[in-house]
């Protein structure tokens, strides 16, 4: 007998023998529900007092440097007509929200849908519904559609902007793996992994800086199934899918450019997307790590960049913020950074 059929029969049999709920369920639920309402009202009242304090405080505690932060030359309050925002090392702001840099002209183009521009090159991933995604040039030319059936989670760009990687799963038979998508042609190459051997919690793959491999956080189950802790990173050859080495990093890398140019260090962080806290800088040769203030990208061996609240931060490898630059008009929109070229 097949599993799915047996599961149906088993659950039908279990629930078929179940009598209805006992008397008074509605009354007990109403009484408890009223209690929850009272607790919520009290919490809201307390929250209003706290909000007054929080709103007042930023004006008192913000350092002067932030108020006097230099405005980036060339930034625009109307991103659709802005020009390239140059950063240290010739890096650029590749996006501000849905406004994406056209590297050919240096202008920003407002795109529709949920967009994710490549850190290099001119390709943009556009997610406008379930079941498929589009890859287009910034101006909307050369579109290709990719069927995303079986893909799970986010798509992550390679540092060169020529490929994406995404997690995949299959029900028949049950399998887990990753797929590499060619950004120009949309061609998909699937690689299944031995999930029993390479046990992952979130099964999210990210690139190494050189694009030769992808890495998968291997689960640490010591805290239970729900903890989703990371034991190490396992690399896989991006072309063949063959497993490579294991790296002493106990968190998910922030992205391909979060690896240092030599590949010795990586900024990795919390499992929650967009989390501001909990990032660390790992030395993969020793496994040691230290707190790091943001999910940064490495410009050179001694300089990193990160974004926060509409600003671009310049950092040293010890996490010191040496400069803060405002991106005009960014507000709280997502800012993307990319290397020159």
């Amino acid at each position, binding site marked *: 007998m097949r599993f799915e059929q047996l599961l149906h029969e088993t659950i039908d049999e279990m629930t078929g023998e179940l009598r209805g709920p006992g008397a008074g369920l509605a009354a007990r639920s109403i009484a408890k529900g009223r209690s929850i309402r009272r607790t919520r009202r009290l919490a809201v009242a307390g929250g209003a007092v706290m909000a007054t304090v929080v709103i007042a405080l930023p004006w008192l505690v913000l350092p002067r440097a932030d108020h006097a932060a230099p405005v980036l030359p060339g930034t625009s309050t109307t991103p659709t007509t802005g020009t390239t925002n140059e950063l240290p090392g010739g890096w650029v702001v590749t996006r501000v929200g849905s406004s994406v840099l056209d590297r050919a002209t240096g202008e920003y183009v407002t795109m529709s849908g949920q967009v994710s521009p490549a850190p290099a090159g001119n390709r943009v991933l556009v997610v406008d519904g379930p079941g498929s995604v589009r890859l287009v040039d910034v101006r909307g030319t050369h579109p290709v559609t990719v069927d995303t059936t079986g893909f799970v989670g986010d798509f992550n760009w390679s540092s060169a902007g020529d490929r994406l990687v995404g997690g995949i799963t299959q029900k028949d038979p049950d399998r887990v793996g990753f797929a590499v998508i060619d950004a120009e042609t949309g061609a998909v190459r699937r690689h299944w992994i031995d999930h029993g051997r390479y*046990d992952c919690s979130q099964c999210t793959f990210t690139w190494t800086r050189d694009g030769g491999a992808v890495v998968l956080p291997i689960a640490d189950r010591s805290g239970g199934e*729900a903890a989703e802790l990371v034991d190490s990173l396992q690399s896989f050859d991006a072309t063949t899918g063959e497993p490579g080495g294991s790296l002493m990093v106990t968190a998910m890398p922030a992205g391909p450019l979060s690896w240092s140019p030599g590949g010795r260090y990586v900024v990795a962080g919390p499992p929650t997307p967009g989390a501001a806290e909990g990032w660390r800088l790992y030395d993969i040769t020793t496994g040691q790590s230290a707190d790091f203030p943001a999910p940064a990208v490495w410009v050179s061996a001694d300089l990193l960049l990160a974004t926060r609240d509409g600003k671009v931060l310049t950092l040293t490898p010890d996490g010191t913020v040496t400069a803060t630059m405002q991106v005009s008009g960014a507000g709280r929109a997502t800012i993307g950074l990319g290397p020159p070229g």
Partner: protein
Amino acid sequence: MMTPEEAEFSVFVEQRAHALLKTAYALTGDRHAAEDLVQSALAKAFARWRRIDEPEPYLRRMIYNEFASGWRSRRRQAEVTVAEPPERAGTRYVDADTALRLLLRDALQALPPRQRAVLILRYFEDLSVEETAAVLSCRQGTVASQASRGLAKLRELVPQLEWSEVGGRH
């Protein structure tokens, strides 16, 4: 004297609580734990009853989500045991299919709650990975991982089953 809101809620409970209890029972494998889970969900639903457009899907989602995210019955000891003896076939003769169902029933109870919830949503409710992740408020990769781990465990516990023929939509 009930308010109109309480009267509407009571009618809903009278009509749909049994179906919700079945869902909770499939998850917990224990009647008392299932009743606790349903009552907990109903109480939370009543607290915001006026803002809920479709109560049954809302409650079903809440039951799955609460169960998978570490909900514990007030009578937790009952939850970790297998189904109650009076409801079981016991030691009398059972045919092969019945034996398999009993094996699977016990095997499901041996899984951690989130794995159990994922397998029931994926293979009983026939939800996609995306839909399952939405119900359980977790990442799609987590669904894939938990399904894989849960099936691996069931393969160990119920080796008599034709595992190669697991099927369905992505």
